[in-house]
C-alpha cells in the first residue's frame, strides 16, 4: 500500500472530523456545541467531495451547513433549565453501557470489513451500472433513487411526511421576526431569487449530473426560511389546503405512477419502456415540492398561523 499526499489529506480530514465531534459534544456551553456542529456539517460536505460523492456534497452543503445550522441556532433561544433532569447513573448501569458499546463497536467493525472485502466483483453496483441505460436517466444515483430502489424513496417521503405531521401537531409556530432593515431586505430578495433559480437548475441537472429532488428541495426550503427570517409572515408558505396538497405531492405522484403501472400489466412502480425519463422528472418535481415545504414547515417549529382556521373549514361543526 503506497502512502501518498492524498492519504495525508484523508487523515487530516478524519482527525478534524473526530476533533470537532468530540469538542461539540463535550463541555456544557450549548452555543459552542451548536457552532462546532455547524463546522462539522461543513467539513462533512468536504469529505463527501473527497470521497467522490458530489450528490451528497450538494445535499450536505444545503442541509448540514445551512438548514440544520439555522434550525439549531434558533433552538438556542429556547432556554433550557439545567439540573432539572439530572441523570444519576449507577455504576452497574455504567458498566453495562460500556459493554454494550464494545459489543456495538465489534459488530460495526465486523459489518464494515465484510462489506468492504466480501464478494469481490459480485456487487449491486455492477447491476446498477449495467441497467443504467434503461433507467431513463444517466446519473447513477438518481437512477437508484427514482428507479431501481424507488420503494425506498417512496417510504422516505412517508417518513418525512410523518415527521411534518408531528411538528404540525405540536402547536403554533414561533413568533414572527422583526421587519428587516434595508440591507437584509435586499439580501432576502436576491438570495431567495438565486436559491429558487439554483434549485430549478439542480432539479433539471439531476437526470444527467449530480443534483435532483433532494438537493433542489433543500434549496427551496432555504428560500422559505430566508423569507421568514426577513420578517415575512405569510410569503413562501401557502396556508390553507394548498399546503396540504403540496406536503403530500411527492407520495401522491409516486403512488399514482405506481398504480398506473399496474393497469398497464406492469409491476407496481415499474415504468413503461421509453417513458421512464419523463415519469422520473414528474415524480422528482412533486417530491421536490414536498421536501421543500416539509423542511420549511420544520423550520417554523409548529403549525403556521391560520392553519387552525383553514383546518376547521372542512370539518362539520
Amino acid at each position, binding site marked *: 500500500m503506497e502512502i501518498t499526499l492524498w492519504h495525508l489529506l484523508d487523515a487530516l480530514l478524519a482527525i478534524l472530523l473526530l476533533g470537532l465531534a468530540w469538542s461539540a459534544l463535550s463541555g456544557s456551553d450549548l452555543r459552542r456545541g451548536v457552532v462546532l456542529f455547524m463546522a462539522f456539517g461543513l467539513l462533512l460536505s468536504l469529505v463527501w467531495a473527497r470521497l467522490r460523492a458530489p450528490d451528497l456534497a450538494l445535499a450536505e452543503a444545503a442541509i448540514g451547513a445551512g438548514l440544520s445550522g439555522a434550525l439549531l441556532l434558533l433552538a438556542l433561544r429556547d432556554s433550557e433549565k439545567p439540573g432539572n433532569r439530572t441523570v444519576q447513573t449507577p455504576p452497574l448501569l455504567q458498566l453495562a453501557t460500556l459493554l454494550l458499546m464494545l459489543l456495538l463497536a465489534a459488530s460495526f467493525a465486523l459489518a464494515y470489513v465484510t462489506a468492504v472485502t466480501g464478494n469481490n466483483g459480485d456487487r449491486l453496483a455492477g447491476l446498477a451500472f449495467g441497467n443504467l441505460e434503461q433507467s431513463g436517466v444517466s446519473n447513477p444515483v438518481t437512477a437508484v433513487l427514482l428507479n431501481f430502489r424507488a420503494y425506498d424513496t417512496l417510504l422516505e417521503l412517508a417518513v418525512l411526511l410523518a415527521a411534518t405531521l408531528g411538528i404540525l401537531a405540536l402547536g403554533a409556530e414561533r413568533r414572527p421576526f422583526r421587519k428587516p432593515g434595508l*440591507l*437584509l431586505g435586499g*439580501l432576502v430578495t436576491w438570495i431567495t431569487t438565486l436559491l429558487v433559480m439554483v434549485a430549478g437548475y439542480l432539479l433539471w441537472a439531476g437526470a444527467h449530473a449530480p443534483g435532483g429532488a433532494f438537493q433542489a428541495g433543500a434549496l427551496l426550503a432555504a428560500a422559505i426560511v430566508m423569507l421568514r427570517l426577513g420578517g415575512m409572515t405569510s410569503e413562501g408558505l401557502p396556508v390553507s389546503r394548498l399546503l396540504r396538497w403540496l406536503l403530500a405531492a411527492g407520495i401522491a405522484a409516486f403512488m399514482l405512477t405506481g398504480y398506473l403501472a399496474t393497469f398497464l400489466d406492469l409491476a407496481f412502480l415499474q415504468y413503461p419502456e421509453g417513458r421512464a425519463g419523463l415519469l422520473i422528472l414528474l415524480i422528482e418535481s412533486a417530491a421536490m415540492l414536498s421536501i421543500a415545504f416539509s423542511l420549511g414547515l420544520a423550520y417554523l417549529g409548529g403549525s403556521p398561523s391560520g392553519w387552525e382556521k383553514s383546518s376547521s373549514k372542512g370539518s362539520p361543526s
Partner: protein
Amino acid sequence: MTDLLGALFILASLGFFAAGSIGLLRLPGVHARLHALTKADNVGLGLLVVGAGLIGGDLLLALKLLLVWLLVMVASAIAANLIASHAMKDGEES
C-alpha cells in the same frame, strides 16, 4: 504554461487565506476580527478562482467560478454587516 501560471495564482491566494485565519485569531474584539475575514479571504478566493479558471481551461467553468466568487463576496459582506450590528446591540444590552 497556463497550468503553471494558474498554480502560481493559487499559491499566492494561500497567503491571503493564511492572513485571514491569523487575523481571526490574533486581532482583538469581534469588530476587528471582521476585517481579517471579509477582506483577506475574499481576495484569496478571487486569486484562487483566477488560478482554477486558468488550469480548468474551460470558458463555461471559468464563468461559473466567477459567479461563485461574486456570490461569496456579496454574501460575506452582508453576513459580516449582520454579525457586526448584532454584536453592537448585544454590547448595549448587557
